[in-house]
């Protein structure tokens, strides 16, 4: 059951001119959050913007004694709401509703977990990596961005013991080009007898491409879709995506309560608006 917390901003760490990590005091949300779930944040106290914005829970914050303290979100300045969040200072308060949505299903050993992130799509993978590592599952992160300056927070994953492969579109770090290239190479090098699951979050064309790569290698693949949301609770039907039901028939399906995590084979990619 989601709770609405009038959360104090603990800190807002600017990583670049676009990216920040916003830490919010919200123990009631941190206590119940599962990997891949999200919160709905009100980015202003007033009525412009009117609606909340969905954000993946980036990290669970804990006190020294291990008790839940709050959550962070990984924010990229794109529009009005994300710009307001980028500018927020410690001590401000933001209404934060969560945890929401269908979480990732972390695999157990001997299954390998490969996380594929594009840009701000890194957001759901810290909590997933922690859950996977806690189960003893080996985790690899394929992390693509436009340029080296947009690659953030890799040390968080290194500290957790996650192997990291990086690509940049301008070639300024890692493999030049899209993340699908090193991913395909790595998948080809793994024997079919080694079970493996892909977890993907990023821009829609990137997720579609990775879903295609996963399918061509016969690997299961979960995607975390990001859509415009009105409420986050299933009330408004704004955030629908074309997804197949159990019988294979596509329907407009709410990404807030039936997702944001979907089996990639359910998504009718050619019909998904981005």
């Amino acid at each position, binding site marked *: *059951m*989601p709770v*609405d917390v009038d959360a104090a901003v603990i800190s807002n760490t600017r990583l670049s001119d676009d990216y920040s990590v916003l830490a919010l005091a919200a123990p009631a949300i941190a206590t119940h959050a599962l990997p891949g779930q999200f919160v709905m944040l*009100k980015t202003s106290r007033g*009525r*412009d*913007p*009117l*609606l*909340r914005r969905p954000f993946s829970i980036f990290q669970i914050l804990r006190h020294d004694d291990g008790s839940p303290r709050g959550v962070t979100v990984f924010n990229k300045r794109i529009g009005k709401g994300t710009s307001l969040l980028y500018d927020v200072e410690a001590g401000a308060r933001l*209404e934060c*509703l969560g945890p929401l949505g269908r979480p990732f299903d972390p695999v157990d050993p001997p299954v390998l977990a490969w996380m594929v992130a594009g840009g701000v799509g890194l957001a759901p993978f810290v909590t997933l990596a922690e859950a996977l590592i806690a189960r003893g599952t080996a985790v690899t992160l394929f992390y693509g961005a436009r340029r080296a300056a947009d690659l953030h927070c890799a040390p968080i994953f290194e500290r957790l013991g996650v192997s990291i492969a990086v690509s940049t579109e301008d070639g300024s770090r890692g493999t030049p080009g899209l993340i699908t290239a090193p991913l395909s190479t790595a998948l080809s090098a793994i024997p079919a007898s080694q079970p493996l699951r892909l977890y993907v979050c990023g821009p829609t064309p990137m997720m579609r491409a990775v879903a295609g790569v996963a399918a061509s290698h016969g690997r299961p693949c979960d995607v975390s879709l990001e*859509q*415009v949301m*009105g*409420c986050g*609770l*299933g*009330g*408004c*039907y*704004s*955030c*629908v*995506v074309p997804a197949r039901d159990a019988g294979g028939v596509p*329907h*407009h399906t709410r990404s807030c*309560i039936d997702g944001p995590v979907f089996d990639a084979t359910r998504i009718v990619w050619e*019909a998904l*608006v981005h």
Partner: protein
Amino acid sequence: MDLSVAIGSLRIPNPLIAASGCFGYGVEYADSVDLSSLGGVAVKGLFLAPREGHVPPRIVETPSGMLNAIGLQGIGVHRFIDEKLPELRERKATVFVNICGTTIDEYVELARILSDADGVHAIELNISCPNIKEGGITFGCSLPGTHNVVSAVRRATRLPVIPKLTPNVTDVASFARAAEEAGADAISLVNTFLAMAIDVETRRPKLTNIVGGLSGPAIRPIAVRMVYECRQAVKLPIIGMGGIATAEDVLEFMIAGATAVQVGTASFVDPFIWTKLLDGIRAYMRRHRIETLSDLTGTLDTTARHKAWISS
């Protein structure tokens, strides 16, 4: 203190109803909100058959408001009765079923089917959705059309019949009169205002459907005025809505003439708004020594206006 109000023969515990199209089928909120504590739940508009609705993007924000063009996506009346109504009944929700048709026969059939279902308390006739061409808006924008569909449904059911009026007409009060003459038990208003928003960089509409319905605090003063006009025109109970976000907004609609209200967009922003609204209403009643909330309806005082001091 008595917060209950009567919509025709239906008495509800308080005047706060979750607005159709803004609260799913109610069951989505069953774990977060005590559905029995609401005045009612107006479920998402239902056709006879399931519908997929419009291609996203379906919403866009505007100052103090939002446009939507969902396109009445829905599971159809039969799946609603089989899959959603049992839980609503179990949760003791007062259920207003919003129905949409393309012909009078479809409205009548929907009303008959719902009259036989256990747990439906009232029927709200959607003759006002601005986002679909083939639906009830053609009835809602014509006085004879409104009269004919309301009277046909009136004959088909014993449930309270509540046509939901569109504000996209010149004189909404005349539609209230048409509904009253046709035997409606109450009216609800307003549905959303037909509107649009454009991305000037791409020169594309921000909604796939090009146009959508404006809701939220931006429309509230117009909705209050329309409720007031209808109050002058008809004796029917009025369920007022349009941008309600605070207890003060609820009271404003009631003073203008509403017996009950619906809350939609504001519950997107705050799904727990209901207890806050009720607390605010109770505080007002204590402050004004009002024992029975329904006494507030239609109590607008226009006598204290300043008189013109210059003769024209």
